[in-house]
């Protein structure tokens, strides 16, 4: 047989002899023939399908496509060999042609009787016999037995064991994502029983809370987790409670079957716990759109599709998405079966265009652990502050009486402003929010429409007279650059201002403002023209409040219980030119409008209820009125400012804590009532529903939904983790193997179908899958099993001859060696420097990021336009917690092949590019880590006698914090020379030294010589950039 390959084939050795259908034939048929003769009925040609035995071997009129044992009588053999263009298969114009070797395999296979097999991955998992260990006897680890059997077949030998320090670093990185400390390395090297010490180290690593964090990164990439909704607007979402559930699940070693059930169907369990509801956030991690003009159903359908594709990839290793538009081209998954899976996820009460708020329904609020004590303290502090305020107030009785008399006079005159506190405001556009603030103003948030009309309803608790209305536009931090509006430059254009009672519109005689932009006079608000209005040129007067006054033609006499409606119209051609925070007041008096401006802003503003309280004649209610007045006085008297500020601070602290102590998270929950009908969608289009389908599972896997299982997500989850499901365990253990070795036993972890790679070690894969299931899906136990094998513990040094044969290390004749994944690179640098803040869970953090990245692409109505880096410890949290904005993911992670989080990703890719070098050389994250690493080592190292000796010690200390093994004399020499060279350079340019060590927020060690620290920093930077630092080996 002509199967001579330059490098080793991933599949078991192709020894001469019988052709095997699964190994040799099916991949050819699938790749070269199924496009036209496969499962997809729509693109099938000549009414021939080769993916099913019965139909492929069906006798036709006087001939056979495949005549077992008779290649000469098989039309297939004729067609693949003929030179007649019309008959030739595949047709000459097809890109994919058979190689001569492939044609030969097909011919041989038919000659050998054309035996058929079920696709390997669809066969049930059977625990295979462990191969005979030979001389090694019973001591040989089962994994090694499988690996060495294959090596022996290839005439290869395993590599020597890795040196112990390197091994400890490897396993620590693999299981916790962090390297060992120098002390851990020293203890490991000193242990008398290396094997026992290794087993103990593995247990310690698996028990570390860092284990859950390490595992969670991979799961977040698979689950397409992010901290924004994605799509165009890309607003913030809060799903981190789900992320923390995952960390916790790994740390408590939640069995993988339960891990599966809770995430896919936790809400359908009997009496689900809050944690089980949070777990279902898994299937809400998909992107959610909020683009203006988008059609709800179009995107709702996308979310359901995403759930099917993600679930199929993660649990089944199937590329189900291919069957969205038509029957799968290669695998036995029909379009109808695809929509049967879709039906499981199609019954959520959700909207397609809902990505504005932090969560889209359905969602729940959960409490964040760890706040109990601080909440108690904050409540006590507030109580104390309240008491103090009351005490101070009691001492001010005469001042209160004076004020009361003064205000009574003012109220009698009618010349005071009454602030309309917390009025009811509505906009014409959906999704906007109006938040009342303590000063009576209203903050406009949420959706930011192009145009709008804001209607303010004022209810009069007591009768009152209104002769003028005041409008203030106030600055707010949430508005563009702290201005007056959310428009692109913070300006607004009020095109109309109207008042109306039940009697009809109210006319204004006059309008005046403290400032109007030329051409946009305040009087244009009452001119009836929607295209003109009041604007205030914010750019010229940043941060200033603007005030306008409108006097009524005739004073209004409002009776108790009546309503006055005010309308702020924004209907000009300017977009989003809408006042972002406004406050309205009324005046009863009838002085000329211009004089209103002179009014003092504090006590001469009298709220409606105070005016009311002063005019209450009834003795019975006078008591209450007195309380209202006293309260008001307490809140406004200047003498009480200090006590109020203390009380306000305590209140703010409590409300901040209360806010932090709860978080929202999107979850799955079934719609009540009749389930939403699911249809096959023709060409996958949301607006082309075809026949109706019921929830169901693909037939080809040979396992139907067991009797009695509900036909919902819970039934689906049970079906996935059913021991007879041929895929779930195989796919799961393959990902764990990939995590440790860089490449799976099946090289395509995302595809176990016909087009996927075949396993390099099928028996080992099945043994691992069976072991995993038999252990009760014990993930920690399986990982321990693998990392304690000799195969895992081999040296990763590369034999060039072996490299040529097995470049991807699919035979595992050497240990794993590849560049660290993105998060480990950053975590390792922080850890080596002693900067890493080890703290579990919580809201995402924002470490250093080059300025301007969000700004350069974000739309103005997104709430993720400006990236503000955090400070203090939040700069040094594990990379797992870094805020993930989908449209602009963290560049120093993306450049190192982190997944984008737009869609499910389970395959690891590792590239090597100059832009990566720029990150670890120049990113402040790494530049600071190098500096802090240097100062940590310098502070610790006591200077010894003799410059050379001390430099060697210094270099060794730096080395030890970044490398597991000891440096060679040659390496020490290069680093020592570098240290001396940089010392000289910085001594000659002390200003440069000062600059070099100022990088980053972490304080500079004060007692350190800047030149020495800068020089040492450069050496530390070298160490952080070494290939051996960047690589797991």
């Amino acid at each position, binding site marked *: 047989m002509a199967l001579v390959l330059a490098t080793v084939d991933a599949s078991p050795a192709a020894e001469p002899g019988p052709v095997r259908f699964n190994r040799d034939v099916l991949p050819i048929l699938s790749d070269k023939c199924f496009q036209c003769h496969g499962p997809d009925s729509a693109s099938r040609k000549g009414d021939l399908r080769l993916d099913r035995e019965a139909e492929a071997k069906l006798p036709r009129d006087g001939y056979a496509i495949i005549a077992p044992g008779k290649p000469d009588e098989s039309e297939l053999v004729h067609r693949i060999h003929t030179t007649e263009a019309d008959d030739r298969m595949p047709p000459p114009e097809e*890109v994919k042609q058979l190689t001569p070797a492939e044609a030969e395999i097909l011919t041989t296979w038919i000659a050998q009787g054309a035996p058929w097999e079920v696709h390997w991955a669809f066969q049930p998992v059977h625990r295979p016999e462990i191969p005979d260990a030979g001389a090694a006897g019973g001591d040989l680890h089962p994994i090694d037995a499988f690996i060495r059997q294959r090596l022996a077949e290839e005439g290869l030998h395993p590599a020597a064991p890795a040196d112990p320090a390197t091994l400890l670093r490897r396993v620590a990185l693999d299981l916790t994502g962090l390297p060992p400390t120098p002390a851990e390395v020293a203890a490991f090297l000193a242990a008398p029983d290396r094997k026992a010490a290794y087993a103990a180290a593995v247990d310690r690593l698996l028990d570390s809370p860092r284990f859950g964090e390490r595992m969670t990164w991979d799961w977040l990439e698979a689950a397409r987790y992010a901290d924004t909704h994605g*799509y*165009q607007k890309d607003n913030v979402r809060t799903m981190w409670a789900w992320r923390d559930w995952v960390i916790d699940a790994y740390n408590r070693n939640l069995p993988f079957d339960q891990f599966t059930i809770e995430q896919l169907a936790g809400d359908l369990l009997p009496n689900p716990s809050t944690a089980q509801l949070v777990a279902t956030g898994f299937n809400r991690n998909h992107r959610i759109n909020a*683009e*203006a*003009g988008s*059609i709800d159903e179009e995107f709702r359908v996308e979310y359901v599709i995403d759930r099917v594709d993600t679930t199929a990839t993660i649990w089944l290793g199937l590329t189900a998405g*291919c069957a969205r538009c038509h029957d799968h081209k*290669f695998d036995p998954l029909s379009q109808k079966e695809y929509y049967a899976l879709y039906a499981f996820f199609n019954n959520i009460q959700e909207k397609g265009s809902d990505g504005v708020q932090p969560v889209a329904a359905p969602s729940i609020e959960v409490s964040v652990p760890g706040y109990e004590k601080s909440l108690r303290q904050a409540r006590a502090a507030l109580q104390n502050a309240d008491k103090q305020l009351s005490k101070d107030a009691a001492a001010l009785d005469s001042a209160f009486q004076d004020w009361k008399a003064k205000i009574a006079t003012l109220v009698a005159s009618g010349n005071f402003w009454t602030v309309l506190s917390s009025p009811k405001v509505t906009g014409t556009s959906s999704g906007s929010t109006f938040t009342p603030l303590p000063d009576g103003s209203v903050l406009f948030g949420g959706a930011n429409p192009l145009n709008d009309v804001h209607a303010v309803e004022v209810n009069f608790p007591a009768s009152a007279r209104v002769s003028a209305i005041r409008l203030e536009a106030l600055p707010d931090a949430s508005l563009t650059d702290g201005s007056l509006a959310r428009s*692109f*430059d913070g300006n607004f254009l009020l095109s109309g201002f109207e008042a109306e009672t039940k009697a009809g519109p109210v006319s204004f005689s006059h309008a005046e403002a403290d400032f109007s932009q030329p051409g946009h006079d305040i009087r244009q608000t009452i001119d009836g023209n929607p295209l003109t209005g009041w604007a205030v040129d914010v750019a010229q007067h940043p941060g200033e409040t603007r005030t306008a006054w409108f006097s009524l033609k005739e004073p209004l006499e409002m009776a108790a219980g009546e309503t006055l409606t005010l309308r702020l119209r924004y209907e000009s051609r300017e*977009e989003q030119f809408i006042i972002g925070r406004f406050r309205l007041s009324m005046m009863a008096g009838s002085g000329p409008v211009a004089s209103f401006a002179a009014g003092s802003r504090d006590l001469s503003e009298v709220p409606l209820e105070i005016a009311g309280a002063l005019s209450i004649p009834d003795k019975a209610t006078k008591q209450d009125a007195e309380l209202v007045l006293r309260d008001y006085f307490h809140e406004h008297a200047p003498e009480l400012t200090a006590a109020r500020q203390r009380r306000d601070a305590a209140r703010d602290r409590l409300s901040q804590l209360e806010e932090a102590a709860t978080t929202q998270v999107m979850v799955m929950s079934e719609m009540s009532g009749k389930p939403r009908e699911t249809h096959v969608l023709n060409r996958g289009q949301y607006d082309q529903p075809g026949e109706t389908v019921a929830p169901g599972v693909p037939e080809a896997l040979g396992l139907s939904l067991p009797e009695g299982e509900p036909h919902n997500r819970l039934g689906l989850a049970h079906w996935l983790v059913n021991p007879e499901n041929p895929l779930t365990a195989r796919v799961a253990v393959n990902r764990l193997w990939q995590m440790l070795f860089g490449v799976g036993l099946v090289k*395509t972890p*995302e*595809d176990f179908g016909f087009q*996927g790679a075949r396993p390099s070690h099928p028996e080992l894969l099945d043994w691992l899958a069976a072991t995993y299931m038999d252990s009760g899906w014990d993930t920690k136990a399986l990982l321990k099993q693998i990392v304690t094998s000799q195969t895992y513990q081999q040296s*990763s*040094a*590369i034999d060039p001859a072996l*490299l*040529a044969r097995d470049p991807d290390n699919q035979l595992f004749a050497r240990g794993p*060696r590849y560049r660290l994944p993105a998060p480990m690179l950053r975590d390792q640098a922080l850890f080596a420097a002693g900067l890493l803040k080890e703290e579990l869970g919580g809201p995402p953090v924002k470490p250093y990021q*080059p*300025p*301007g990245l969000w700004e*350069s*692409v*974000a*739309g*103005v109505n997104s709430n993720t336009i400006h990236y503000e880096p955090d400070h203090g410890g939040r700069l040094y949290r594990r990379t797992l917690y870094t805020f993930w904005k*989908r449209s602009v993911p963290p*560049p120093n992670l*993306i450049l190192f*092949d982190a997944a*984008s989080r*737009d869609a499910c990703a389970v395959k690891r890719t590792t*590239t*090597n590019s*100059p*832009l990566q*070098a*720029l*990150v670890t*050389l*120049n*990113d402040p994250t790494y*530049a600071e880590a190098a500096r802090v690493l240097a100062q940590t080592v310098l502070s610790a190292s006591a200077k010894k006698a003799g410059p050379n000796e001390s430099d060697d010690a210094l270099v060794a200390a730096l080395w030890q914090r970044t490398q597991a093994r000891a440096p060679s004399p040659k390496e020490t020499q290069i680093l020592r020379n*570098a240290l001396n060279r*940089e010392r000289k*350079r910085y001594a000659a340019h002390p200003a*440069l030294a000062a600059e*070099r060590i*100022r*990088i980053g927020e972490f304080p500079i060690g004060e007692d350190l010589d800047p030149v020495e620290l800068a020089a040492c920093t*450069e050496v530390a930077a*070298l160490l952080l950039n*070494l*290939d*051996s630092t960047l*690589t797991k080996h």
Partner: protein
Amino acid sequence: MNSSSHPAFQESVLHQTRREFFSRTGAASLGLGTAALWSLLSREGLAATTSSGPQPASFPNFAPRAKRIIYLCQSGAPSQIDLFDPKPAMRDRFNEDLPDSIRQGQRLTTMTSGQARFPVAPTIFQFKKHGQSGADISELLPHTATVADDLCFIRGMHTEAINHDPAITFLQTGAQQAGRPSLGAWLSYGLGSANDDLPAFVVMLSRGSGRPNCQPLYDRLWGSGFLPSRHQGVKFLGSGDPVLYLNNPPGVAPEARRDAIADLSALNRLEYKRQQDPETLTRIAQYEMAFRMQTSVPEVVDLSDEPESTFRLYGPNARKRGHYAYNCLLARRLVERGVRFVQLFHMGWDQHNALPKQIRGQCADTDQPSAALVADLKQRGLLEDTLVIWGGEFGRTIYSQGDLTADNYGRDHHPKCFTLWMAGGGVKAGLTYGQTDDYSYNIVENPVHVHDLNATILHLAGIDHKRLIYRYQGRDFRLTDVHGNIVRDILR
């Protein structure tokens, strides 16, 4: 190109790395000759495809007509009706309802689907015929009019999505869903780089002054999708470092960096001796290349060697970083230095209301620099084999969104027809291709789908779009999915 004379570089590991690379991937037999190392390294993805997939040697499939491509993406969708597709008869139909026979039940965005009426809004701008070819160009684009005879207008462009996100994602990647590689990433993957010390695919962004509160963009639009991440577009930034992380940390002098790179090479060579991992050699080469980029990128963005005439040609904004004019000039400088694909994104074309005012601003930003780029390439003899493309993700509606007045209107998204122009690089000059109906609503002659456009761009770059394949999730993916016809009518 190597700007360093440091001893460490005299015994550069580059050739050694290349040999290692060849021996590892079997690329030595592929006849890639003296192609730059970056491009070889960029080929990893191709080399890694299955034996049944295309071989690296298969690109280009034929001699490229366009050795370089500059794609001026007008994000937000410019109005074809006001720029390139005159419909004088519409003047008489001002404020009439769009006939159902024209609309044909076409779905609308929810921004206008609730409108009671769809009143016809003729353009208020004057059109004239320009050049010997008599191209129809609006008064908004006087500079573009001067290069009319170099341009090929495709009036029959059409696409599928009606919202920006899916539509621009489709234009860039051939799929409405996120996650596929962008055109530039495909080109980088297929062809590698033609230079030693700059990326193969560069992206630059600018905000329009016509509508500053514009539609956003997303990094994935120039991402590599499932292709190896090195194929993603490298952003040349409008502020800060010209390329992310390009500059040394403060206090690190260039000579110190040069010495550090030499130290790293020496230490990594020791590591290689011990471990024999060819990736280590690649890393040494990548660090050297990073160092060269630290010189070559500042050099390319330093415009001090440009004569005054350049700025007269491109306009005064060509001196200002982050402006479209600057980006156009930089695009020319980049392709001169062997960057294969430069893509500009200019935001602000999404003019739902106040279109007349906003489009004036956008045209003021883009007209002169775009025309200058074509003229400049031509005078340098580069237009012949440089393809320039100008266009957005869809078109705009003839009917007004919002109130229609004599001098004001807005237009909603319209996927069923739009105009895009191309120049140079093997495309017929002075051609207007395709026709729309009286309302610029439906295409009546020579439609060009986005897949056709992408197939044609790849063809001009010397690539058979059916052969540029990457297997992912068991499927052989293409930029053009299973579609795409080369628009041979527009090829020279």
